[in-house]
């Protein structure tokens, strides 16, 4: 069966999972302007931005003969939980003959979940399934480690274009792995390639580190958030996101692994947001506090225009920024976002952090 899935973050990971299970995978392309236009055209106007982009991706991949889309549902009071069903309805109404598997958390309906897993499992043995999941999980962790390294050293790279090309080659190498041993080999190779750039990190007090939090889709997908990490890197700031694919997997598929981290973040969010209001809103707030605790210099909060949970966390930012004495910039992203506008804000944001650092250093020397 020709299978595809929404585009978000390191898609090679989902692709790999389905491919190793013996499905014929139709890899979605990164969303472009055209994808967004197509998605906007066939989506309800007030659906949030990720819905529209995923809609566009579905319609583009459908042209390449997809028979089944696999996507995830959601839990809690965020409307993204309904999006799988809504996409299905709209696409089927448009006359396409395509099936959907919307994976909801298993504890909501064990029987349905089991049936869906059986479809995806196909003729593979359970042993094979376990092995594939193990390999893909390892790969996912490994890709995230390398990506974090890239977004750190890229802030100081002399030839960023070359580094970006190497990063793309590394991802291609990952997409060709077959076993867990391949993952280790590709990771070593990747570390060697990055080392060749011989990028030296400046002393701790001179480094500018910016955390990125917010709604998962706009945080994880560079083609949607205007490559925000790369822009910040080019302004001389290192970046780290609150969400990587492996964090997301830990959180949703292996909750027992992610539980400790989640508990810690919920505790840090207490006093600001004490209820699960859907999406990542409560965790976003916890992560902002966490970034401060880890010595980051600023946080950028991203939300798709009309995202309900993140709109609530946004209203906490003023207070958080004052309490933590850390600059926080909130950006709203959708099809209307002008790149020049975002660039101006990011440029000013990094400048202000630089001024603040220079000033606090001066103050220290004055007191000595």
């Amino acid at each position, binding site marked *: 069966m020709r299978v595809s899935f929404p585009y978000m973050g390191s898609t090679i990971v989902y692709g790999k999972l389905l491919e190793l299970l013996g499905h014929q995978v139709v890899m979605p392309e990164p969303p472009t302007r055209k994808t967004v236009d197509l998605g906007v055209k066939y989506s309800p106007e007030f659906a949030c931005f990720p819905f529209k982009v995923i809609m566009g991706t579905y319609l583009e991949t459908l042209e390449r003969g997809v028979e089944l889309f696999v996507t995830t549902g959601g839990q809690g009071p965020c409307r993204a939980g309904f999006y799988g069903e809504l996409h299905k309805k709209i696409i089927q109404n448009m006359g396409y003959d395509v099936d959907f598997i919307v994976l909801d958390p298993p504890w909501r309906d064990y029987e349905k979940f089991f049936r869906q897993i059986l479809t995806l499992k196909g003729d593979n043995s359970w042993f094979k399934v376990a092995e594939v999941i193990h390999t893909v999980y390892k790969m996912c962790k490994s890709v995230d480690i390398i990506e974090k390294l890239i977004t750190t050293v890229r802030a100081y790279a002399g030839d960023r274009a070359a580094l970006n090309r190497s990063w793309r080659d590394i991802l291609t190498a990952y997409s060709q792995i077959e076993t867990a041993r391949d993952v280790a080999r590709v990771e070593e190779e990747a570390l060697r390639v990055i080392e060749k750039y011989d990028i030296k990190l400046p002393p701790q007090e001179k480094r500018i580190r910016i955390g990125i939090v917010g709604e998962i889709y706009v945080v994880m997908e560079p*083609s949607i958030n205007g490559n925000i990490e790369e822009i910040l890197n080019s302004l001389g700031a290192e970046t780290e996101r609150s969400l990587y694919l492996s964090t997301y997997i830990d959180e949703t598929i292996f909750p027992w692994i992610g539980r400790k981290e989640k508990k810690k973040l919920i505790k840090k969010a207490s006093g600001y947001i004490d209820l699960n209001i859907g999406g990542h809103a409560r965790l976003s707030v916890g992560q902002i506090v966490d970034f401060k605790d880890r010595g980051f210099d600023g946080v950028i909060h991203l939300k798709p225009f009309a995202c309900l949970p993140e709109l609530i966390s946004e209203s906490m930012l003023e207070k958080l920024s004052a309490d933590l004495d850390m*600059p926080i910039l909130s950006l709203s992203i959708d099809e209307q976002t002008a790149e020049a506008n975002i660039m101006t804000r990011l440029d000013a944001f990094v400048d202000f952090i630089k001024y603040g650092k220079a*000033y606090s250093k001066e103050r220290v020397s004055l007191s000595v």
Partner: protein
Amino acid sequence: MSRVYIGVDIGSVSINIVAIGEDCELLFRLYKRNTGQPVELVKEGFKELQKELGAKKEIAGVGVTGSGRQLIGYVLGADIVKNEITAHAAATTFYYPEVGTIFEIGGQDSKLIIIKNGIPVDFAMNTVCAAGTGSFLDHQAIRLGIRIEEFGKLALQAKRDVRIAGRCTVFAESDMISKQQYGFTKPEIIKGLCRALVRNYMNNLVRGKQLEPQYIFQGGVAANEGIKAAFEEELNHEVIVPEHHDVMGAIGIAILVKEEMERTGRGTSFRGLDFTRDDFYTDSFNCAGCANECEIIRVKANEEVIAMTGDRCGKWSGSILNVRDSEEKHA
């Protein structure tokens, strides 16, 4: 020969050029309406600058800011190209070391900058709506048949208050029309509009932020006495409009370039005043290198490519030197 530093601010409504000397003293200032051909306007501006400063001055650095900074930065061979928020903060903290809050309202955007101990710490910029910015006021002045320069003064003559909806430009306009039809006078309507704009600014930009004096009001709209009065009424405190409020962005970027050149000691990369005789133009093509299909914008000076931008990966913008071969490969 004494050194001068040039600051250029390419805004949506105006193009401003200033020159400052070694002590940041203002030697030249020009405020020009942006009629949509920034390169030509900048050329004319530099001709005026040359005439006024004469040959005794050496241009030691050029900085460009404003929404059109990228293109003009390439054209001039600027030493720094920086956002207008930082530039405004630099100018204001120079003239008013005690500043706490900067209100900047320009042609198409409004900004709020918070300063603590002379260091900019926070900012906000209008997001969804342009209500309350210069172009909207321009439009309303034309509709009421009043010169924009007279607009603010008129507000001060109002005897009564009338409330105008300021949330959105379209609603503000229809509300103004209906209040006119009820028989309110022009000054009253303008005063209502000024207060609506300030209210809008407070709701959209200030939100919960703590504002501290001194309050400095700058940008093209600061010439409007009605808005200044409405700010003072809202804050219940004096609001200062700097003498050169309309070119503060250009002054700021000139100060920043001066600091940069003095700190690094490098020579300027300015193309030289002869650039006014060069031909500049831009074209674009779609890169076929990957699925992103970025639109690459190419800036040429006399047929020679001087800059490329618009690529997400840095393939074109990062490699002006290799432009020729990569273009061949592309073809």
